[in-house]
Each structure stands twice: as C-alpha cells, then as structure tokens.
C-alpha cells in the first residue's frame, strides 16, 4: 500500500474486506484526502457508520469510530453531536443503510439541520447481502431480487435531502475521483447538515448481474451515465432518467440545531443568574 494515507488508516486492519475493484476504497481515500485538507482536528472527530460493505469504512479509519446498527448511523451521530456539539461528526454510509432502512433518519437530520457530514457510498445495491435492489437501483436493473428487471423508480437522494432541508448537498462518482475530496471537504466545513452522494461501483453483484463484467466496465457505465449539473439543467425529465447529475446542488446558511441549543442553554443560564440577582433584592 502506498503511504499517502497510512497515518489515517488502521494499517493492522488492512487489507479491506472489499472485493477487487469495489468503489468503496475510492470513496474512503477521497474522504481521507478531504479530511487532511479540511484542517479539522482528528481528536475531535468521530466517524459513525451503519452496516453494509461501505459501512465497514469506519473500521479502517484511525479515528474514534463507531460501527452501529443497520440504518441507524445517523441517529447515533445525532446523539453524539447533540450531546457534545464540539465534536465533528461524520457518517459514512451506504445507499441501503441511509436511504432504505435509514431513510427516515436521513431526512430528519437534514430537516433539523444538525451539523453532520454524511457521505453516501451509493452503489445502487445491497452489496453486503449479495446484491438485492436498493432505493437507488436504476429502473430496469437486474438484481438478486429483481431478476425480471427492477420495476420501481430510484430516489434522487440529493433532491430528497434538499427537500428535507440540508444546507450542503453534492454528488460525484468514483470515476470523478478527484471531485470527491473537494466535495467532502466542503461538507466537513459546512456548519449544518451536509450530504455527499458518491456514486460507486459494486462490480461483484450489481456489475456482474448487469452485464458489466469488470470493475472498469462499471465505472465506464457510471461515467457514461453522468451528466454535469449545468448540462442537466438543459435536459428534460425523461432525458435525465437513469442519469447521475454531478455537482453541488445546495450550499446555504441556516441556523444549526446544536448551536441554537447552546444559545438556549446560555440564555437560561443568564436568566437563572438574573433570577438569583432578583432574589437577592
């Protein structure tokens, strides 16, 4: 392994359990690069993950890490952040983890605008359980539970968290690997709920079932399905079906929950003091 990130990896846990060519490694490296560039203090940073291939990320990072239950990472993260607002809290999660079983926690964290950074490793399948359809599986895909072609429509997770109230929302892909650190860094530095959707390949299940026999084939499909945000604006809904729109969608300021709560605590303290002052009179 090259030594670029060896300080951030738990080297004794390597190699990862990930299959050859799995996109998870690309996203994880991108996260480390972003963290390095963010200037944040590792000591004050907690990595939270759920269950899934992607969620194993937490185990490889030399941070305070907590590998929680399937779908619930964001709720654990919420407890950490609201109880200790001085900590930077990052959630590394999969499309299944954060948008199937965990969809509700995702939208509520966005609504609350709690200062979490959520990175979704979006491979449009449940890799860990051998490749069933997920809420982000493109319509028509073959998976272990949609052998006749997936009949539902996928979520556009960026649109969803935007509608829910997130203050930073962006999407990139493992093909666009250089964009990952940039976006995650912005997300880390945003004081508010931020979400980065990283389209990634699961060559083992999604790829193979959908006639992409190598990891590179799947990355080519990702490349060919990607559309720049600017370009996308000129396209119709039907033209955009099955495409991944890449770019930053939201980057705005809004009062952040834990900071507002701290203000309340201060306010009540003050009141108490004033109360005490009155009492003395």
């Amino acid at each position, binding site marked *: 392994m090259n030594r670029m990130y060896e300080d951030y990896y738990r080297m004794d846990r390597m190699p990862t*359990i990930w*299959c*050859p060519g799995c996109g998870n490694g690309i996203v994880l490296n991108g996260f480390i690069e972003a963290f390095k560039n963010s200037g944040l203090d590792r000591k004050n940073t907690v990595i939270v993950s759920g269950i899934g291939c992607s969620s194993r990320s937490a185990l490889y990072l030399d941070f305070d890490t907590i590998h929680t239950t399937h779908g619930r990472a964001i709720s654990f993260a919420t407890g950490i952040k609201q109880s200790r607002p001085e900590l930077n809290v990052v959630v590394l999660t999969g499309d299944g983890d954060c948008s199937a079983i965990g969809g509700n926690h995702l939208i509520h964290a966005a609504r609350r605008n709690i200062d979490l950074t959520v990175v979704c490793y979006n491979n449009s399948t449940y890799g860990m359980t051998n490749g069933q359809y997920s809420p982000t599986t493109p319509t028509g895909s073959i998976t272990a539970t949609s052998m006749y072609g997936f009949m539902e429509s996928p979520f556009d997770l960026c649109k969803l968290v935007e509608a829910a109230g997130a203050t930073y929302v962006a999407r990139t892909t493992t093909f666009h690997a250089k964009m990952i650190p940039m976006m995650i860094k912005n997300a880390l530095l945003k004081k508010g709920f931020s979400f980065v959707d990283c389209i990634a390949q699961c060559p083992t299940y999604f790829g193979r079932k959908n006639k992409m026999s190598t990891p590179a084939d799947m990355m080519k499909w990702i490349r060919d399905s990607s559309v720049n945000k600017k370009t996308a604006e000129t396209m119709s809904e039907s033209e955009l079906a099955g495409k991944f729109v890449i770019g930053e969608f939201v980057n705005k300021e809004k009062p952040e929950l834990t900071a507002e709560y701290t203000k309340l605590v201060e306010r009540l303290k003050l009141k108490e003091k004033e109360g005490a002052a009155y009492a003395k009179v």
Partner: protein
Amino acid sequence: MPKYELRLSGSGGQGLILAGIMLGEAASIYDNKEATQSQSYGPEARGGASRSEVIISDKPIDFPKVRQADFMLSMTQESYDKYISGLREEGVLLTDSFFVTKVKPRTGPVYSMDLTKIAAEKAGKKIVANVVSLGAIVALTNVVSLEAMKKAVLDRAPSGTEEMNLKALEEGYNAALELKGKILQEMKK
C-alpha cells in the same frame, strides 16, 4: 457405506460449491444414499478460500458438518493451507497440481492432478475443472457411482454444455483411475 466426509476447497470462482451440490445430488437423488452439503458463508467467503462440504452415508446423517474429512480436494494453495488440518491423517487428498505446489508429507494418499489443465485441454474450457474433479473424486473414492454422477452433472449443465461436462467428468474419472492404479502399484512396491 458408513459416513464419508468430503471437503472441496479452492477459490471463489472455481465452481466448488456447485461441485459439492452435484456430488450431493448424485448420492442422494440417484444413488439413493443420504447426503448433506454445506458451505462457508460470510465476508471472508469473498475471494479468499471457499469450501463446500459433503457428507454421504447409507444411514441418516446426524451431525451435518464435516469434522475430520475423509477426502479433501484443494484447488488453490491458500485453501490447501487453510483446510489441510481438517483432513484425517489417512484421508485422501486431491490437489490441482498447477495451483497447489507445496504439499506437506502425509500418511494418507496424495493425488496431485492437472485438473484445470485437463479441463482446458481435454474438455475445452477451464471452467469445467470442477467437473473434472468430480470425475476424479468418483474414481478415487467410489462414494457415488459414475452413473449417478453423470446424471447429476447433466441435470445442472446449462443446455448446450452437456457434452463438454460429460467429457470433463470422464476425463477426470479416467485420469484419476490411471493415477490411482499407478500409486497403488507404487505402494505395493
């Protein structure tokens, strides 16, 4: 036949799970014996060593896991290293000589065969190396009849590949018989 325990091991893509299933089918559906098959699961099953276990017996099988195997097939060095301790000292070992190069000396017989090469050269495709192995297993162990094994292989062969699979089975069977003869002869010496 008393309880006979087989372990087929190798790497993920070598079709050993399926081989185990076909072996179980040959025994239970066509030879009217009792058989159980099981395999390793889990993240560690991704890449790395994979194994398929078959128990064959005339009587109902109680404990369904292989404990001390009577027979082991190893199609990779890694799987050999990982599982060899589970083979009875007197048990039969079959390896793919191309992939398994380091075999420790042992009491029981060691059959080292060019299983993958036979598949590629005699049957036409590397991927039927698992069926070649099945042929060899029949020849070396007699746990199932060749007839039953053929039927089981035919049942599972995708249409159009029947002949190739039968060929693989026979080639494996013949090559193993030959080798067995040789080795027995040697042992007699």
